[in-house]
């Protein structure tokens, strides 16, 4: 009996060891990817923030609402762009995003444009109608694809397929912290500053006209925000995976340690028993 349990433990140790090899390898891959993704996210961040700040400034000073993109209309249908990963094994990366999503969309009639395989699965699971499934691989989405997605979304928004556009993605705060967020993209609407009456100098000149300018820049604006959010999400995913795999490797190490202890105990018990048996035999 002792021999078989020793063999079982040995087998367990072997299996945990091979799992640890995999998690170690995944951790290494993720750490090299996270470096690249982080650089990319940091490079696009000025664009992302400047774009958002500029549009906020513009929309705040806007007094003319001829463009469909700045009109607030009653919200019947909400569209979500969901940026998640292609694979699991990234800790709470996907689950946290979907939880934030769930909270935001409760009680709303919505459609979605998923980016990433997990996002597609999420939509299927929750019966959310999808605008397109063409972007199911988040790693392959380029700036050109972002422009195509933005074109599609803006067209659908203009045609009234939905009345509000949100984007769910994950903010890369640091290597150890990632924050899921839902950001409103359309219609452009910003809090009016207190004070009401503006001095004439503060009025912005739009050329050729406010409506035309908005129609020309909004698709670019959505493209830019999508691209920035993708870069943030990619960096978040890789760092979440790195952290998760690091923890998994550590756990595997601990498990091997405790299993080795058990193994040695079982071995010692078997030897002791054998000696006892021999001694008992000799005495007789």
């Amino acid at each position, binding site marked *: 009996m002792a021999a078989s349990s020793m063999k079982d433990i040995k087998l367990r140790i072997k299996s945990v060891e091979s799992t640890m090899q995999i998690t170690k390898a995944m951790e290494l891959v993720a750490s090299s990817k996270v470096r690249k993704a982080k650089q990319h996210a940091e490079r696009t961040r000025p664009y992302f923030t400047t774009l958002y700040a500029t549009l906020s*400034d513009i929309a705040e000073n806007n007094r003319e609402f001829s463009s469909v993109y700045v009109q607030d209309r009653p919200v019947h249908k909400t569209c979500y762009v969901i940026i998640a990963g292609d694979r699991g094994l990234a800790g709470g990366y996907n689950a946290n995003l979907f939880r934030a999503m769930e909270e935001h969309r409760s009680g709303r009639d919505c459609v979605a444009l998923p980016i990433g395989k997990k996002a597609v699965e999420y939509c299927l699971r929750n019966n959310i109608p999808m605008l397109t499934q063409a972007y199911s691989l988040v790693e392959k989405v380029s700036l050109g694809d972002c422009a195509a997605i933005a074109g599609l979304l803006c067209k659908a928004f203009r045609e009234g397929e939905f009345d509000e556009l949100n984007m769910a993605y994950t903010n890369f705060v640091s290597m150890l912290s990632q924050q899921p967020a839902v950001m409103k993209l359309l219609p452009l609407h910003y809090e009016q500053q207190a004070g009401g009456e503006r001095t004439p100098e503060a009025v912005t000149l739009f050329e050729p006209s406010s409506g035309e300018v908005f129609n020309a820049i909004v698709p*670019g604006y959505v493209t*830019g925000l999508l691209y920035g959010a993708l870069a943030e999400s990619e960096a978040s995913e890789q760092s979440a995976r790195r952290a998760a795999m690091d923890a998994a490797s550590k756990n595997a190490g601990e498990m091997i340690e405790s299993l080795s202890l058990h193994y040695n105990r079982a071995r010692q018990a078997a030897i002791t028993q054998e000696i006892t048996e021999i001694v008992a035999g000799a005495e007789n």
Partner: protein
Amino acid sequence: MSSFHLQIVTPDGEFFDGPAERVKVRTINGDVAILAGHIPYVTALGTGEASVTVDGEVRKAAASGGMLSVTPEVVRVVATTFEWAEDIDLDRAKRAKEKAEERIKKARDAKELELAKVKLSRALVRINVGK
């Protein structure tokens, strides 16, 4: 000459952040040059040559898409693509031009034609600026 704070950003990163005396860009309505003390102004960018003057020295660039926004504090050029003249790869631009011309010939519908035309104009601007 008095200067103003100019920022140029694209998805590929920041290209300029600092004082400048003059910035010229191609908007959807034609060329526009901004000097210090301009009133708040917003317009959309087309595809064309851009130039920035710093300390009397003019730097040329190719820019396309995006917008120009002037506020009392800062002038922002938020472009889809932006390349300084010295960074332009002429061979690549020429190849892109040939490819775009071929695509225009082969285009099956209006959308493809439109896309190829945009690509062609972008390549032409880059060749012009890069020369």
